[in-house]
């Protein structure tokens, strides 16, 4: 074996501060991708050591044991054993352990040591350990383990200095003697013996954790705190994101007009750039503000240690319908937009729980449904009070939201019943100590999310938007045409054909034509309806013109049916694109689209027929 360690793998228990240490080592020089064929995140970075050598660092997923229970842990196990296809075995393993939680973390250190590869132990969070009066005899620990031990404070500038020096001093390639395959009890016995010899622990828990948890996990106050927190996050997402989103849309539109200014108006290229390319670019970028704001909160909640507490509070409710407590935050995020919601399911390690969450996330009423809902409600539902207390329009909107939630719970429950694998999947979730989130770690996390979205989802959305533009624009209207141009296009013809399918649920051909470009995003359907009824203007002006027209031409049954349609229909290709990316499977996209269309059709059929029978 060479004396130069160039490929370093970071391993450790979840919550050991490994990723913060990785950020500390590599700064912004990171590459985030997926391991081939699975949706486990692969984070690699590099740094130049004081000696001038470039070292590559792989941040392996957190693991409690090599006896893997999730795809994350299986990857850590296989890479460490040097048997993961396409990954070279690491020259040096840096095992990260939380100095305040050695009883748990040392056991995994012993497992790693057994590999017989060069290992350095990084005792992380040494500052917290000192504050708690934990005294660790580092020299003695190193001696007992037979591996070098360094102290680190990953959240402090320069907190990894000792580790870098140790790595750089070309870690002695002393291969630690693998201990014989001791059973679980023997490993724990060894941990106990080492702890007794090297660590003085004044008390098991941190007073502040106990104090916060008394409130945060309280049956009444805990739920109240969670509700208040969620309410605040929602307020922030809607009030902060909206102006930025409007700005992005206006900016992209202005840019499109500027770029295409020299092209003849009405030419195909002019239209392609404006209504295809720039519209597609706008459709991608407009999601960014909500994604960033939501993930800002999610990352802060995660880093502070609150996220598992929220999961603890709600696990029972979620578990009954076949989900897990960890699904709560992703599903809640989906009320703003299913895209960050589905991206947030990465915090669910269990593949079955994660897939269920991804498949029901589109049922949460996202903000893009609101323009459609408000248009139809304003046009068809009388604005009158009910029992002198509620507003009928408000009640209808509320009903639509709850229809989404209840159907999500229902679908999860049915999936739980239908699936063949009925084995018990564990919750077993660590509730880490509370910590103050670190600004740099949050910023890097946000940067990663933004890149993942733009690189992996943006391309699909852009391509589909251009395709829809093509369908809606070609062929152009013949000379002397009297109908709006879209009628003559492929989309128009598709819409007319769809009328046969959709007339039982009360949709006229205008609605059917609008549904096709409405696939780009739900709110586009409003603009498309405007086009079909030959109107123009901004979205708001359109909605106010369109309202009276459809109120005259449609029956109430048709309007209610369309509302029911929008509760379920997968009228957003971006969501399907993100499902493809996050599950790495077209089959799951087909399952999601199929069941959502099925539900939408049935719900609209029932709504239309009942409403017609009653009127």
């Amino acid at each position, binding site marked *: 074996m060479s004396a130069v360690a160039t490929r370093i793998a970071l391993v450790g228990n979840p919550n050991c501060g490994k990723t913060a240490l990785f950020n500390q080592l590599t700064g912004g020089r990171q590459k985030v991708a997926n391991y081939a064929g699975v949706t486990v995140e692969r984070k690699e970075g590099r740094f130049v050591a004081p000696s001038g050598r470039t070292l590559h660092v792989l941040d392996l997923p957190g693991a409690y044991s090599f006896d893997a229970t999730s795809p994350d842990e299986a990857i850590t196990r296989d890479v460490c054993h040097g048997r993961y296809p396409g990954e070279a075995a690491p020259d040096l393993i840096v095992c990260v352990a939380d100095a305040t939680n050695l009883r748990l973390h040392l056991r995994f250190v012993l497992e790693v040591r057994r590999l017989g590869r060069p290992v350095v132990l990084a005792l992380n969070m040494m500052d917290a350990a000192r504050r708690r009066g934990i005294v660790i005899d580092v020299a003695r620990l190193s001696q007992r383990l037979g591996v070098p031990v360094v102290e680190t404070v990953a959240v402090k500038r320069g907190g990894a200095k000792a580790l870098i020096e140790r790595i750089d001093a070309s870690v002695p390639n002393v291969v630690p003697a693998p201990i014989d395959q001791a059973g679980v*009890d023997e490993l724990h016995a060894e941990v106990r013996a080492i702890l007794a010899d090297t660590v003085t622990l004044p008390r098991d828990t941190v007073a502040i954790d106990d104090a916060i948890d008394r409130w945060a996990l309280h049956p009444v106050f805990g739920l109240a705190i969670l509700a208040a927190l969620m309410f605040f996050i929602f307020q922030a997402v809607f009030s902060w994101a909206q102006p930025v989103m409007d700005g992005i849309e206006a900016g992209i539109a202005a840019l499109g007009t500027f770029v295409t200014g020299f092209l003849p108006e009405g030419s195909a290229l002019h239209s392609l750039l404006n209504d295809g390319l720039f519209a597609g670019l706008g459709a991608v970028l407009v999601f960014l503000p909500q994604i960033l704001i939501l993930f800002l909160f999610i990352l802060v909640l995660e880093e502070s240690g609150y996220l598992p507490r929220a999961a603890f509070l709600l696990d029972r409710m979620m578990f009954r319908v076949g989900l897990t407590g960890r699904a709560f935050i992703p599903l809640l995020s989906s009320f703003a937009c299913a895209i960050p919601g589905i991206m947030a399911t990465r915090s669910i390690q269990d593949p079955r729980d994660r897939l269920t969450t991804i498949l029901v996330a589109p049922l949460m009423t996202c903000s893009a449904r609101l323009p459609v809902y408000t248009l139809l409600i304003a046009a068809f539902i009388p604005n009158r009070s009910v029992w002198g207390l509620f507003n009928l329009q408000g009640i209808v909107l509320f009903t639509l939201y709850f229809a989404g939630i209840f159907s999500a719970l229902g679908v999860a429950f049915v999936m739980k019943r239908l699936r063949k694998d009925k084995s018990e999947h564990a919750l077993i979730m660590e509730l880490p100590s509370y910590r103050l989130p670190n600004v740099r770690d949050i910023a890097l996390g946000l940067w990663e999310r933004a890149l993942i979205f733009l690189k992996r989802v943006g391309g699909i959305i852009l391509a589909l938007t251009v395709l829809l533009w093509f369908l809606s624009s070609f062929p152009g209207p013949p000379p002397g045409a009297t109908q709006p141009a879209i009628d003559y296009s492929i989309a128009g013809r598709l819409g007319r054909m769809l009328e046969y399918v959709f007339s039982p649920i009360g949709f006229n051909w205008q609605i059917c034509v609008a549904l096709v470009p409405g696939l780009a995003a739900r709110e586009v359907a409003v603009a498309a309806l405007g086009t079909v009824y030959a109107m123009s203007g901004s979205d708001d002006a359109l909605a106010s013109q369109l309202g009276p027209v459809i109120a005259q031409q449609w029956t109430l049954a048709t309007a209610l049916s369309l509302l029911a349609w929008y509760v379920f229909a997968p009228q957003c290709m971006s969501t399907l694109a993100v499902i493809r990316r996050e599950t790495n499977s077209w089959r799951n996209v087909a399952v999601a689209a199929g069941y959502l269309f099925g539900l939408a059709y049935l719900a609209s059929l029932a709504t239309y027929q009942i409403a017609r029978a009653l009127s």
Partner: protein
Amino acid sequence: MRLSDAPKGAQAVVQSVTDAHPADPIAQRLRDLGFVAGEPVRLVARGPLGGDPLLIQIGSTRFALRKTEAARVEISVGGAA
């Protein structure tokens, strides 16, 4: 006594973890996490809905375990055992 039936706040000691079925991965994971004979454990809190999941303290670590998971852990309650 099973950990799932432990009185709240009482100090207890793990006796064993039983497999609910042969090669039970959940029991194995509990052992890996330190639920082995002789370790002191404490039930800190119960979930707000139906008293599930349970918040269990073992060593300086806290875990949320569903009742069915905690039922695999056999304990003895009573001070210095």
